[in-house]
């Protein structure tokens, strides 16, 4: 009976997966962080701190998931952090422009947005996807180097953020927004649940479908993928659309926590997203990595920073630690790749 169970398809997948997991250095790193955290601080494993940790994972994790998909194709997306703010700004600005047309006023004194929030969210998601598509078309069809294309987008979007807001913040205090930013469901922050939902969808698509597998094919050997009949340009555009959507969702989660959106926010977060994807084992050259491992990267990154913060370590040393972990992860992943090849 047990032999039959063991040989069933689910068991045959689960056991190697667990064995792989047990051999994975990043899993050991996460375990180490939690053990050290629990041993050195009475506050590390408190409910409140774990909630903080999950909320931090949600924002950087969402950005990194989109980045992972783009990196899988052998490209990069430097515009994600600027886009996460831009998409929300566009949502608010479009709605406040619409309001007078229907005889309403949704921007009240103190720049508080008092209109419906669902359309803002929908416009933000559409904006994220649209900017992602523009990036993708530039890279895939006009052959602009992805670094240049998305660097230009980053600069332009940062500029647009100031132009559209006139440099003033918009306050977002709608109950639904507060729910996304502050509430919990079954003890887990809603923002983290949103991240898990996006993660599951991406794992299902990237690792569970033939179409998703084409990102790996393009990143591994683009010419071979092209000769195999894959419309590589279309998939590159799709990767950027996914990245743009993830950035917009990250923007929703991020601004829901701050209950406001402000042009200069999240500067430099694109580098954090790249760092997390790399810590999770995604190769900058493309073809290697997975959303699942990006989750591990996000947790390792956020848990490590959280531990340093709990210890009261200054941010300069935290940055230094990020650099060391990044170098170590790249080194370890190269070593393990060499090992598996041999």
């Amino acid at each position: 009976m047990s032999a039959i169970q063991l040989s069933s398809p689910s068991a045959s997948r689960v056991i190697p997966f667990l064995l792989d997991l047990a051999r994975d250095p990043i899993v050991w790193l996460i375990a180490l962080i939690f053990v050290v955290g629990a041993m050195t601080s009475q506050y590390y494993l408190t409910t409140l701190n774990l909630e903080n940790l999950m909320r931090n994972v949600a924002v950087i994790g969402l950005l990194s998931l989109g980045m992972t998909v783009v990196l899988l194709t052998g490209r990069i997306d430097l515009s994600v952090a600027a886009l996460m703010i831009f998409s929300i700004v566009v949502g608010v600005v479009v709605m406040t422009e619409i309001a007078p047309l229907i005889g309403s006023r949704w921007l009240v004194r103190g720049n508080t947005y008092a209109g419906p929030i669902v359309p803002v969210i929908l416009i933000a998601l559409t904006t994220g996807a649209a900017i992602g598509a523009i990036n993708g078309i530039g890279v895939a069809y006009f052959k602009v180097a992805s670094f240049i294309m998305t660097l230009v987008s980053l600069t332009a979007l940062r500029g647009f953020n100031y132009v559209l807001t006139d440099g003033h913040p918009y306050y977002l205090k709608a109950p639904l927004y507060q729910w996304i930013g502050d509430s919990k469901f079954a003890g887990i922050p809603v923002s983290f649940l949103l991240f898990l939902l996006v993660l599951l969808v991406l794992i299902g698509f990237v690792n569970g479908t033939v179409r998703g597998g084409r990102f790996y094919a393009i990143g591994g050997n683009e010419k071979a993928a092209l000769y195999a009949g894959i419309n590589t340009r279309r998939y590159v555009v799709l990767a950027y659309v996914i990245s743009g959507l993830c950035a917009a969702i990250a923007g929703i989660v991020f601004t829901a926590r701050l209950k406001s959106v402000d042009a200069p926010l999240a500067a430099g977060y694109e580098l954090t997203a790249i760092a997390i994807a790399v810590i999770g084992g995604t190769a900058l050259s493309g073809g290697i990595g997975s959303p699942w491992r990006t989750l591990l990267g996000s947790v390792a990154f956020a848990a490590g920073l959280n531990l340093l913060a709990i210890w009261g370590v200054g941010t300069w040393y935290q940055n230094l630690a990020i650099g060391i972990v990044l170098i170590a992860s790249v080194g370890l992943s190269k070593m393990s790749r060499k090992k598996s090849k041999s």
Partner: protein
Amino acid sequence: MLKLSRRHLLKTAAALSVLAASPLTIVPAFAEDSVHAVLNGLIKKYSDEAKTGMSNGDVSALFERDGFRDYLDVYPVGDLAGGFVWKPGMGASFVGPYSKLQIKAPFTDYLPLPEGPVLDASKKYRIGLVFHGFNHPWLISLADTAAWEAKRHPNIELEVIDAEFDDNKMGQVIDTWIAKQYDGIVLWPNREAPMGPPVDRAVAAGIPVVSLDRRTSSEQISSEVLGNFYANGLQQGLYLKHAAPEGNIIFNRKDLGSTADSIRTGAFLEAIGNTPGYKVLANYHTNSQRTQAFKSTADALQAFKDISVSFNTGGEEAMGALDAIREANRLNSAPGGKKIMILANDDAREVLKEIKAGNIEMVSPYTPLIGDIGIRAVVMHIGAKAGLNEAPPKLIMTPNLPMITKEKMNIEGIETLTPDEWPYAYGPEVSG
């Protein structure tokens, strides 16, 4: 019984020490003639005039476009806590724990706490100070004064974190301190909007929070130690009106939406708004960065041949503007061969040196040496929570300070001070 009498003793001692040390109920008779009161009177006068309208179209357009009225109307202007009267010469001297520079902090007698253990001497009080910019001379000095005050009290443990101008990171730091159940939090927020929610969360968790200098969007915050932004911008305007009834102005401003920009620039525009001779040539946001102010001023010098005034919301901006004007060899290129007038804020030592040399016309002092007030205020809140003393006021105004000019002047009742009369300058010593 023993517990009750000890608590009672502590309460009485704390109340007596606060009463003895702080002039909370004693209002000196000469408070109305102080610089603080004179400047508050001028703020009211020019604000009321501006509210009835501005005859200068250029100034009025900029004022309306950037929505200064919204910010100015809610920025508190009022009396000092306990009728405190500040006079030049007051304060304490020490070496800054972070900058290692000699400092004279002006307001150490404001809401004072005697040296030694605070509140319950048997208890350790953990206080967090989060700010941005260990790489900025103004901000290091702010942290210096906070750390100095904390060190005077052996049962205060101060953790200082630099959030590196990332508002989200500052929020995360505060969330971590909530999880660590800190006794009090002091912060220097860069922008108002994003810092409200983390402050609200801390206050909801029972942790007193005090902001320094700039404001947050929180209405629950325990106390705000407010700077004298209004007096800063107003004095820049008053000096300009006194020195030249007309002129073409370029602006180097801080981040739009920051309290420093909204109030200083707004107050400057209020002061000159009813003088028709001024023209706004260019308006830049150089975000407290000297290099950006240098670049924008260099660009403006290329674009305009008739610049007569450089308005700067900060000292770093003023130094950047001066460097650009010098490099372009345009110091005396204002119409009529006159010198381009440079108006500054922030009393950095290098700015005072340039005033002495006649390169910068005036500076409105905006001292970063107020971190000590924040620590004292948060300690008082912690004490108030434990029933040991009265809580300090929600709005803690810092004294308005008179402008500094090369020669002594009297401008609308304000006696200016010379650089030699100002021992409170911050930042590195400059040669010459």
